[in-house]
């Protein structure tokens, strides 16, 4: 058995399939210059996202190998051995599966090294990685089985095109049917539309089980189909996938089921990743557990921001990461006057702590606070006054600039003590989601 496997590994299309899968996944992950945030969940999702290309490639590779076997007459040769069907197809299945899943694993390692992935490791990330491997192996075996049924030149490219078409089709399902995509798409997290930042993502256990069940069912059906010698056996091969699909549909969470606080069924927030990790000394600076590696670098700039706001009454005494993922459509928490919030996400992570801090400091320390989202001219004016900068007087393209300057002049006309009170009041009112900040500022 081992000798056969080694021969298959060397002589079949398996090595080429592995290289292609690796290239496809790498292209999808890094074609846009890297999509990961450096966390493990982000790595798992990017890796799984790569299946959009890796899975169709695996299908095509399987069919290509099947056609080669057909052309070279290997099947007739092997059929002369007195072995049961399953034993005859096992070597090629193992060879193709090993290289393709090996390439998938190598891609994960490569991504982890390139992104410097580390820190908090949620079990869900490992589950997503494992599910992807199951689906990928199933894909290459399905390609083999279909290629053996239809050994034509056109089968491999047709399967690749159809595979990608299927994934794109699943991805564009309307709201209400997205749970089908979460269940049946090999690139499951692709269906999590609107979630660009994955550090706080958690998939429900039931979704994981249902998705895995269906993946295993597809793989089993493919192998049985390969081993089947008669028409009746081939029909029986459909049994596992039908059974698996039935169970999976029964298990999978549907859109809009209770307890779902994300955008799609089965998508939730990882509460452990959200827990705050704080500096022991004050003024306290806190980040989410998943971003704990940033704490040493963000502490100094965050304290500078606090120092800049120290003249306010009440003055903020701590800085805290806003851990509500921006894809959760929930009302933001009421702002606390003693806290300045900042956000860390894959988009601004690369910019460094100073960029995070300058966003945190903007608008009297409410710049990164997402509780209420109206643009407030009064906040800009108050901020300019506190920093002692004169805001630009006018900008033909932005009418609100003139308003900011006007409000700033109001502040400048007041005695310092009164103006400082007004600036403090504007900040507190903004954190309370008051709408009429201009009036607060003008007194």
């Amino acid at each position, binding site marked *: 058995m081992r000798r056969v496997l080694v021969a298959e590994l060397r002589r079949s299309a398996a090595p080429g399939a592995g290289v292609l899968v690796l290239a496809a996944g790498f292209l999808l992950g890094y074609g846009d210059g890297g999509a990961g945030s450096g966390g493990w969940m982000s790595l798992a999702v990017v890796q799984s996202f790569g299946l959009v290309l890796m899975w169709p490639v695996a299908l095509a590779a399987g069919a290509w190998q099947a056609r080669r076997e057909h052309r070279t007459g290997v099947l007739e040769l092997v059929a002369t051995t007195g072995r049961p069907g399953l034993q005859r197809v096992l070597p090629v299945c193992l060879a193709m599966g090993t290289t393709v899943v090996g390439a998938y694993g190598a891609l994960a390692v490569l991504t982890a090294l390139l992104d410097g992935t580390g820190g908090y490791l949620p079990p869900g990330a490992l589950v997503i990685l494992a599910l992807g491997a199951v689906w990928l192996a199933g894909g290459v075996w399905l390609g083999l089985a279909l290629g053996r049924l239809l050994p034509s030149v056109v089968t491999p*490219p047709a399967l690749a095109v159809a595979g990608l078409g299927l994934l794109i089709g699943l991805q564009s399902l309307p709201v209400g049917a997205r749970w089908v995509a979460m269940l049946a798409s090999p690139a499951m997290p692709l269906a999590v539309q609107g979630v660009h930042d994955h550090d706080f993502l958690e998939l429900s256990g039931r979704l994981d089980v249902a998705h895995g069940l269906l993946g295993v069912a597809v793989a089993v059906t493919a192998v049985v189909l390969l081993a089947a010698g008669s028409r009746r056996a081939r029909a029986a091969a459909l049994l596992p996938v039908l059974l698996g699909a039935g169970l999976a549909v029964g298990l999978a969470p549907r859109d809009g089921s209770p307890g779902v606080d994300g955008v799609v069924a089965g998508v939730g927030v990882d509460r452990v990743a959200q827990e705050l990790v704080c500096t022991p000394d004050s003024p306290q600076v806190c980040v989410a557990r998943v971003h704990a590696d940033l704490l040493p670098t963000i502490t100094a700039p965050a304290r500078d921001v606090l120092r800049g706001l120290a003249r306010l009454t009440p003055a903020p005494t701590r800085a805290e990461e806003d851990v509500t993922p921006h894809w959760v459509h929930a009302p933001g928490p009421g702002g606390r006057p003693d806290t300045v919030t900042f956000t860390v996400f894959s988009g601004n992570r690369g910019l460094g702590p100073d960029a995070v801090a300058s966003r945190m400091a903007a608008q009297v320390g409410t710049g990164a606070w997402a509780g209420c989202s109206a643009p407030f001219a009064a906040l800009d004016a108050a901020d300019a006054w506190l920093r002692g900068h004169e805001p630009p007087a006018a900008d033909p393209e932005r009418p609100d600039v003139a308003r900011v300057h006007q409000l700033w002049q109001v502040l400048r006309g007041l005695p310092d003590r009164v103006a400082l009170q007004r600036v403090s009041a504007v900040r507190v009112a903004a954190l309370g989601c008051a709408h009429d900040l201009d009036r607060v500022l003008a007194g």
Partner: protein
Amino acid sequence: MTLYLRSRRAPAALAVAVAGWAAVWAAWPLLSSERDVEGPVVVLTVLLLVCAASATLGSPDVGLDRTAALRWPWRRLVHVLVASGVLVGLLALTLASGARFGPFGVVARDVAGLVGLAALGAAVLGGDRAWFLPLGWTLPVVAGAVPDAGRAEVGRVLTWQLQEGHDRASAVTAAVLALAGAAAYARLGPARRDDTGRAS
């Protein structure tokens, strides 16, 4: 002529192409209420048809072909042109129906460019592998793995299959590919390789 077409497996390729085309055309109204088929789906359908057509670019016996006293370059050139024409015609038929593959310019550009790539592939890699190039370029583009570099010139050349009909960079790319492919194939013919991947 009939023998030539049969030796190129043209009837089977045509059947596959028509079946793929008909499947997408019939399925589209079920999936969407729009009359115009979405861009990526159009590109994938074109790709499927080109892959089917690419199967006709090979020859069961390249060596035997070369002994025939025929004017092969012309015959091969006509073959590529006719294949492109059939595909464009097939897709253009849908413009009058309830599921339109269009706009016509985009379809014609994609067919021309992808057939050119397939012809290039046939000339370099052999008839059985002619689909490697069109598939290998188009799948990543449709899957979104190729950045269009903020729609800069380079990006639009790299993702030419998906660009709008009036885009010049993509049209030029497709034209270059079509010409290069047709020229290479007409001149060289399908490469001699057997199925185990070694040149024979």
